[in-house]
Structure formats: structure tokens, C-alpha cells
């Protein structure tokens, strides 16, 4: 077992554990903090897998922007008032069936497949090379993704806007 693989398994355990902790928290703030840990772990894993640029992006976007956004929302909404009951019993059956299929499939992939059993080589895609690759081969995708961000911007603006809600409410009172 090399240092790399040791690191990999260590990170895997951290990621899985913190994610499990995150999804079982009743307190939203705690859940989000655990998830930030998990995403940091993922970022390190990316680095380990030879994608330093993505590792940085993961930290900036996922662990940074997205999680902070969640935190903002949680802060805006009064969390403590909304405690939820966990582990609803009625959900067990689907979960069990899904879990069984999932486990079977997972086992199949892990043990039934030869091609991907070989250890993966070590390689690094430098940010420079990665950027070149993306803009040479996937320029169209980048353009389209920019539209995606645009539509997200418009949608978020429209849905989150407060002003209309008030005028609408006013309109409702005087039909």
C-alpha cells in the first residue's frame, strides 16, 4: 500500500463519514458544516486524481459558494422553529428495495468486472493544459453553459423577487 492509496482510503472514509453525519443532522447548520467537510475531502480527492484545477473549483464553488448560499438561506429562515422528524417508518420499504438493488449492483461492479480492476496510473492535468483542452474542444459547451448560468440568474431573480409578492398580495385584497 503506497502513500497514495493510503491517502485515498483515508479520504474516502472522511468523505463518507462526514456525508452520513450531514444527512442525519436535524440542525441544518450542522448538516451544512459537515457537508463542507465532505466537499473539502472531495476536493483533495480531485487533487489526488490529477485534477488540481477541479480541486480548486470544488473548494471555491461547492464548498464555498454553494454551501454559503445554503447557509444564507438557513440564516434567513428561522431554522429552529422547523424541527423535523427523522427516519419516517413508512419510507422503509422503498429504501430497503432500493438498497438491495443498489448493493447487488455495487457488488457486481466491484467484483464482476475485470477491466477496471487494474490500478490506475498517476497523471496530472495541469490547469494550463486543462484550460487549453476545454477551450479547444469544448468551446461550444462553455458557451452553452454560460447560457445555463444566465437562465439560472434570471430564474433566481424572478422567483426570489420580493416586490411583486407584495403588490400581488395588495392586489389580492382589492380584487
Amino acid at each position, binding site marked *: 500500500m*503506497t502513500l*497514495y*492509496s493510503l491517502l*485515498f*482510503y483515508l479520504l474516502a472514509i472522511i*468523505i*463518507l463519514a462526514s*456525508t*452520513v453525519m450531514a*444527512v442525519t443532522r436535524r440542525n441544518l447548520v450542522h*448538516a*451544512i458544516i459537515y*457537508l463542507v467537510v465532505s*466537499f473539502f475531502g472531495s476536493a483533495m*480527492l*480531485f487533487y489526488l*486524481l490529477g*485534477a488540481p484545477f*477541479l480541486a480548486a473549483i*470544488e473548494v471555491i*464553488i*461547492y464548498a464555498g*459558494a*454553494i454551501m454559503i*448560499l*445554503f447557509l444564507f438561506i*438557513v440564516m*434567513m*429562515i428561522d431554522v429552529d422553529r*422547523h424541527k*423535523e422528524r427523522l*427516519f419516517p417508518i413508512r419510507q422503509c420499504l*422503498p*429504501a430497503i428495495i432500493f438498497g438491495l438493488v*443498489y448493493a447487488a449492483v455495487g457488488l457486481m*461492479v*466491484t467484483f464482476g*468486472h475485470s477491466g*477496471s*480492476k487494474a*490500478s*490506475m*496510473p*498517476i*497523471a496530472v*492535468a495541469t490547469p494550463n*493544459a*486543462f484550460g487549453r*483542452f*476545454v477551450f479547444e*474542444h469544448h468551446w461550444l*459547451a462553455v458557451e452553452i453553459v454560460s447560457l445555463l*448560468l444566465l*437562465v*439560472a440568474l434570471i*430564474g433566481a431573480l424572478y*422567483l*426570489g423577487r*420580493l416586490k411583486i*409578492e407584495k403588490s400581488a398580495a395588495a392586489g389580492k385584497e382589492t380584487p
Partner: protein
Amino acid sequence: MNVPLTHLLTLAGGLFFIGIWCAVTRRNLIMVMLGIEIMLNAAALAFVGASLRWQQMEGQAVALFVLAIAAAEVSVGLALIICIYRRYRTLDPAKVQ
């Protein structure tokens, strides 16, 4: 890195499963969104791993797009959740009817 791809995929699959479990069973819209984020992150992880296996950058490029998509989805989703919260004063999807 002397780890077979299957182990990485198992890790990604585990994350994915936790994500779907969270999205399906939790009774809080924010947690549901978090579950979807976890699933997307798992997919990105799998892409990067596969990218390494084939020694290509294509998987990494796709993982980059996945991150962009996750950000976009979260922003609109949270806006919608705010919109709902303003109206219903709850985050329990069962009460939004």
C-alpha cells in the same frame, strides 16, 4: 495512484446512495436540495476517476460542467424555496399542497 477504478466508483456510488436517501426521506426542502447536491458531487467524482483511468481530460471537462450545473440548479432551487417559504412558512414538502 495505486487504487483500482472500482474502489473509486464504489465510493462515488456510496455518496450517490447517501444523496438519494437524503433527497427521498428528509422532510425539509433544504435537505432535499442538499441531497441532490451530494448526488451531483458523486457524479463529478466518478467522472474525474474515469478521466484518470482513460488518461483523458474529457471527464474532467465534464466534471467542470457538472459543477456549473450544480451551482445553477441550487441558485434557482433556493430561490424557489424562498418563494415557497414566504407563502407557506414551512419547509416540509408534505405541507406544501
